[in-house]
């Protein structure tokens, strides 16, 4: 099978996945207490309106018919109307998703920039004091509750040091033309340097906090994989050939340890998407996470399900990309 055939197969496999995902979200919203028609119409709506809405949403039909109706609505991009904003959920999502992707991707950069070098460093200096120190730091990183870390970081960097602005994706007084919705990309495209600097200053803290746990995880995984690789025969062989320690560590051990790290990075993207619920609400970041966490508190089910489906689809897409990368990185994989 060729690479493109593999990619095609993976894309086709997304279809049953989507059916499964919607089945689960559909069942979850059915678990929810209360009458969905009443919730959608509003608490004070008259009984007739509720009845009309019930028929329009097909809530009086058998469950499997309801699921089919739900599916057709989803395929048309109709996620229902949000109870909090009184607007179609899909519109709310379209406005907010770039913010979340921008934040998560920036956090991923932090993970890669810090996690990989620290992991290599730790493994190369195994058992020395510096290794112990970086291990302890990474363990602390994995163990710190992110919502608490944010409070501490806000206190230190924003209140005491005043280094970073609190809240929002960009200084509200700066005018930025919306092209892609990604503030950093937009400000580069429109050559608006004030906006670029402001949006970078706004993204640093939340991205750092979101990536902090992840970088510690990557560091730990890479360290243990490197140490494992270093015991293999091919490493002994490389040493016996008289290769320098540098070449042994970076060329032989590192290359073979990076594959599980790539898998981990894909999984982590999902974890960080979950993390945006907390980070975005604490930083007043205009994104899906803040929207989702407000929806959860107000039991706004159309919005909750919309965000859940959206997040799961982003996650599935990231996994797809990584799987393709993976097939490229590891020639042993027969697709």
């Amino acid at each position, binding site marked *: 099978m060729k690479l493109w055939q593999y990619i095609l197969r993976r894309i086709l496999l997304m279809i049953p996945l989507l059916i499964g995902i919607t089945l689960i979200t559909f069942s979850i919203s059915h678990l929810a207490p209360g009458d969905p028609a009443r919730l959608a119409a509003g608490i004070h709506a008259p009984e007739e309106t509720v009845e009309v809405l019930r028929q329009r949403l097909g809530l009086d039909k058998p469950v499997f018919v309801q699921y089919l109706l739900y599916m057709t609505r989803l395929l048309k991009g109709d996620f229902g109307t949000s109870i909090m904003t009184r607007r179609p959920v899909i519109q709310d999502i379209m406005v907010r998703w770039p913010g979340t992707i921008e934040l998560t991707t920036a956090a991923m950069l932090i993970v890669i920039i810090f996690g990989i070098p620290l992991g290599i460093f730790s493994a190369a200096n195994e058992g020395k004091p510096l290794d112990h120190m970086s*291990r302890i730091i990474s*363990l602390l990183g994995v*163990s710190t509750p992110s919502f608490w870390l944010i409070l501490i970081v*806000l206190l230190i960097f924003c209140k005491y040091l005043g280094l970073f602005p609190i809240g929002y994706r960009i200084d509200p007084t700066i005018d930025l033309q919306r092209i892609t919705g990604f503030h950093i990309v937009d400000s580069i495209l429109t050559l608006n340097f004030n906006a670029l600097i402001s949006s970078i200053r706004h993204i640093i803290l939340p991205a750092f906090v979101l990536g902090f746990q992840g970088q510690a995880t990557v560091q730990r995984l890479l360290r243990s994989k490197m140490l494992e690789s270093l015991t293999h025969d091919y490493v002994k062989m490389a040493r016996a050939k008289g290769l320098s320690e540098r070449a042994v560590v970076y060329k032989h051990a590192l290359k073979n340890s990076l594959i599980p790290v790539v898998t981990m990075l894909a999984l982590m993207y999902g*974890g960080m998407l979950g993390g945006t619920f907390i980070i975005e609400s604490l930083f007043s970041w205009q994104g899906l996470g803040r929207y989702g966490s407000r929806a*959860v*508190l107000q039991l706004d089910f159309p919005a909750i399900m919309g965000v859940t489906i959206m997040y799961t689809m982003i996650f599935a897409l990231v996994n797809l990309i990584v799987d393709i990368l993976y097939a490229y990185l590891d020639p042993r994989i027969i697709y």
Partner: protein
Amino acid sequence: MESDSAKGLGGIIDRHKPFLQELRHILYLIRRSPLSLLGITLFSVFLLLATLAPYIMPYDPFKINLSGAFQRPNIEHLFGTDEMGRDILSRILWGCRISLQVGVTVVLISLCIGTILGGIAGYVGGAVEEIIMRFTDLVLAFPSLVLAMALSAALGPGLNNAIFAISITWWPWYARLIRGQVLSIREAGFVEAARCVGASDFRILFRHIIPNSLGPIIVNASMDFGWAILMTSSLGFLGIGAQPPEPEWGAMINAGRLYFMDKPWIATFPGLAILFVVLASNLIGDGLGEILNPRLRRR
């Protein structure tokens, strides 16, 4: 030396000699690894605090005293008081019990579901395996905190619902692990032997295969213990897990976040408590992982 003491206890020790030797070797390795010792010590401290909480709490953790609200840490209230004048130290001690219970419950529920489904999938194979594993993949397709939030929103806020929601998002990892283990053990000699003496499939799976595949699972379980506490406190922090006045650490931080800029002690101490419990669990998991990984072990 060992055989001398064994004589008194008859054949029992003799019969389990390989196991005891293994145990001794593991204890020896634990002693040699300072980080896992630190983890075990930390964990024991929390366990002790949770057990003794009703006797050592200086105040009632639920007692509201509005005139004594927002006290800085002082001699009477070592960790200060919160917005309702409740003693934070007492609440943290009481919260120890909640957190340890949460960790154990989540790990046990997900381990049980995962073991049964993963074990059956690996042992039976065929269409059953296909169905179970595809369902597992499906649950894993959701970012776990997102699914847990959606589920607990649907079930209604509360600690028990949060525990249930988190377990539902976490068992697939165990199912995958157990299935892999079962697949590798299924053809082992001792399984064949059990089959020859006429043991039922149920007995072979649950008495022979699964007990022998628990090694790597214990490592995961000890790390997941801390992870479960982190997740539950995240839900508590978001306001959909434990509800006030329950002194769950995440919910306490949520209550303290409004005042954090001026009165940081309210949220700082519960955060430190979470940090140290999770740290203990990670240290233990890390140490066990190193001990049980044969490649890193005998170097």
